[in-house]
């Protein structure tokens, strides 16, 4: 099967084509086709993962373009890293597809929604399978497009349309960086292939400065896609899209593509200490920064969005501190428990008829028991409570940071752990504890298609950590790093585990103390300045608006005027001159034979006179 791994992305693509051509007629069958195709992809991915675990890396390419001495190839590759990614992406995608059947049931454009969703799945799988950076870049742009389409799915809502534009434009900044990085890398090594390019770098054919520049450019792409500071602003706004989309694209898969990108180009980062430090610090700052905003936000999805940004920061931090396996392990566990949290939030939102304000929730524990329990499992997992998935992966991240030894990074990582537990339990208590404050009559569960994906994801959120823990000798590490030389992977001992658990418990305890009854804590009255700063997201959006958007708009308006009056003016002026001349000349065409004759004679005489004058025949 591993030789036929290229079939995996083609299944969702086939579904996309069917839905594109016949979606309107299919209507009720549309979700079924989409779910079936992704289910097929999931089965194949599982088989491929099993074969890869028992076997070896497989790669197949065909020549696509020949430019001078360079062959550009297309193909696919099944490595340890991307076989795991295949499994995670198809698993989450399948559950999201199932969940969406009920969530989008009332939407008249459900076939379009499923079309986009399958197309996204195709693009993401293509991105993961790509054996070279050029192919990766193509799919990288495709997932960006899908993200744009799905965020703006309810385009008739102005917020959604604006959010889609913002998502597209902000990630574009990163994409340009990535493209520049690719071109530089190609220029320096003469290849887009991972293996050939990295071999050239490791052999020292590229200067140290150049490697740093290339790595930083590629990292810029990752910063955009994974919503790292300072390009994080698009992700919270992207929550305007339907919740299943947030779960699939903006929590589990696409935003993790940035982390994946850093992971596949890891030799470049290892070759440049500066780039690695930048990655680590960007990740750490993002992690704390986003977590602090999540403390006060009152929109259930935006809290989760900031949480995603923060967790992606942790993954970057791990990669930046040589914790290759830790970063990817956290990516995998995060995909499961964050998708779970988003889908559970989606379940709540669905029950409350699309109200997302947590000040109007509360007391849902008794009304929506399955959702509440699965949400609690997700909360425990992300907070890093033993023995759920998040505990093991977060502990791996902390171990990598601890082994790195940078005090600032250690402090930031520890702080993030506390904050994560705090804001997640705050969210949990505000939504599920205390008494119901909403105005929707009797919110209740939404049926099996909603709860089954939640339960499945909850199982993953509990168990996914056991692929990498002391009792099986950190199995994932052996699998992921076989044949790679990415340095020793740090392991935390009991002490670190105890500390990380203590930090998480501290955060959770504080949340229980302040929000345990599901009501307001009154913190905004006690520290109004801090609360205000956090509530306004450190005014980052306002700063961007003032520093970048508004000057740019002014400049654009200036250019519009220049275009309208000077460029268009010149063109119109030419037109007007020709037109007027024609009209005047036309009047000379009066049909009078003798006038014509006179003019001809006068012209002839003038011509002869001129010739004679020049040649001097009159002399």
């Amino acid at each position, binding site marked *: 099967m591993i030789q036929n791994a290229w079939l995996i992305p083609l299944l969702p693509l086939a579904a996309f084509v069917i839905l594109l051509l016949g979606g309107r007629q299919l209507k009720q069958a549309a979700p079924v086709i989409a779910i079936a195709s992704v289910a097929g992809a999931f089965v194949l991915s599982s088989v491929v993962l099993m074969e890869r675990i028992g076997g070896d890396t497989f790669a197949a390419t065909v020549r696509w373009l020949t430019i001078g001495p360079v062959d550009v190839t297309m193909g696919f590759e099944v490595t340890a890293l991307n076989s795991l990614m295949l499994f995670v992406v198809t698993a989450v995608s399948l559950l999201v597809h199932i969940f969406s059947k009920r969530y989008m049931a009332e939407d008249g454009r459900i076939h379009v929604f499923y079309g986009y969703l399958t197309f996204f799945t195709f693009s993401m799988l293509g991105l993961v399978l790509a054996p070279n950076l050029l192919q990766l870049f193509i799919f990288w742009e495709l997932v960006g497009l899908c993200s744009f389409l799905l965020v703006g799915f309810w385009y008739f809502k102005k917020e959604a349309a604006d959010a889609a534009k913002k998502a597209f434009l902000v990630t574009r900044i990163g994409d340009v960086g990535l493209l520049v990085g690719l071109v530089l890398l190609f220029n320096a090594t003469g290849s887009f292939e991972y293996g050939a390019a990295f071999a050239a770098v490791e052999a020292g054919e590229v200067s140290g400065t150049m490697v740093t520049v290339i790595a930083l450019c590629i990292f810029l792409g990752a910063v955009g896609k994974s919503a790292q500071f300072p390009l994080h602003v698009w992700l919270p706004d992207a929550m305007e899209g339907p919740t299943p989309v947030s779960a699939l694209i903006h929590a589990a898969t696409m935003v993790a593509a940035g982390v994946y990108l850093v992971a596949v180009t890891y030799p470049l980062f290892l070759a440049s200490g500066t780039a690695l430090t930048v990655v680590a610090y960007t990740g750490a700052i993002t992690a704390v920064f986003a977590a602090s905003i999540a403390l006060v936000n009152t929109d259930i999805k935006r809290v989760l969005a900031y949480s995603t940004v923060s967790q992606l920061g942790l993954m970057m931090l791990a990669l930046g501190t040589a914790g290759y396996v830790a970063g990817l392990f956290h990516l995998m566990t995060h995909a499961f428990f964050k998708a779970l949290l988003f889908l559970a939030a989606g379940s709540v939102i669905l029950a409350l008829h699309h109200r997302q304000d947590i000040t109007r929730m509360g007391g849902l524990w008794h009304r929506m028991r399955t959702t509440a329990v699965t949400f609690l499992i997700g909360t425990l997992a992300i907070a890093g409570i033993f023995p759920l998935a998040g505990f093991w992966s977060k502990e791996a991240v902390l171990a990598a940071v601890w082994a790195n030894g940078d005090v600032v990074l250690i402090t930031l990582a520890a702080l993030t752990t506390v904050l994560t537990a705090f804001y997640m339990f705050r969210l949990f208590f505000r939504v599920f504890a205390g008494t119901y404050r909403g105005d929707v009559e009797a919110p209740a569960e939404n049926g099996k298609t909603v709860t089954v994906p939640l339960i499945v994801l909850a199982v993953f959120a509990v168990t996914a950590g056991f692929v990498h823990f002391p009792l099986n000798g950190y199995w994932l590490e052996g699998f992921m790093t076989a044949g790679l030389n990415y340095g020793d992977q740090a392991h935390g001992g009991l002490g670190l585990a105890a500390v990380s658990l203590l930090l998480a418990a501290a955060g959770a305890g504080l949340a229980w103390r302040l929000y345990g009854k599901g009501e307001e804590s009154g913190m905004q009255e006690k520290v109004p300045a801090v609360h205000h700063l956090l509530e306004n997201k450190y005014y980052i959006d306002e700063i961007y608006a003032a520093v970048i958007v508004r000057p740019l708009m002014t400049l654009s308006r200036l250019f519009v005027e220049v275009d309208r009056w000077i460029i268009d003016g010149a063109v119109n002026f030419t037109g007007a001159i020709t037109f007027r001349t024609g009209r005047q000349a036309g*009047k000379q065409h*009066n049909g009078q*034979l*003798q006038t014509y*004759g*006179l003019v001809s*004679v006068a012209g002839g005489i003038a011509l002869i006179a001129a010739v004679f004058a020049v040649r001097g025949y009159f002399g």
Partner: protein
Amino acid sequence: MVSLNLFLALAAILFCIGLYGVLTRRHLVIILVSIELMLNAVNINLVAFSSIGPFANITGQVFTIFVITVAAAEAAVGLAILIALYRNRSSIDVIKQDLLRW
């Protein structure tokens, strides 16, 4: 021996009279007559060069015969057009014939 210049001067005078007639007279018949005058001015030139020009030879006289023949044909066609025009427009005043204008 009469000087070549005298013939050329005569031809030039005749040509200018013809041209003047073409450009100023309104009656189409007169215009046609004036054109004949211009052609004859050319004929005088051709014959003059043919007999006393620097490279005197018979070609000029032969060409004159051609011009007279073609002029006769042209006059016939011109008069036919003129009659057709008169039948259609009840006038052969050249100033009134201005259908082909912008």
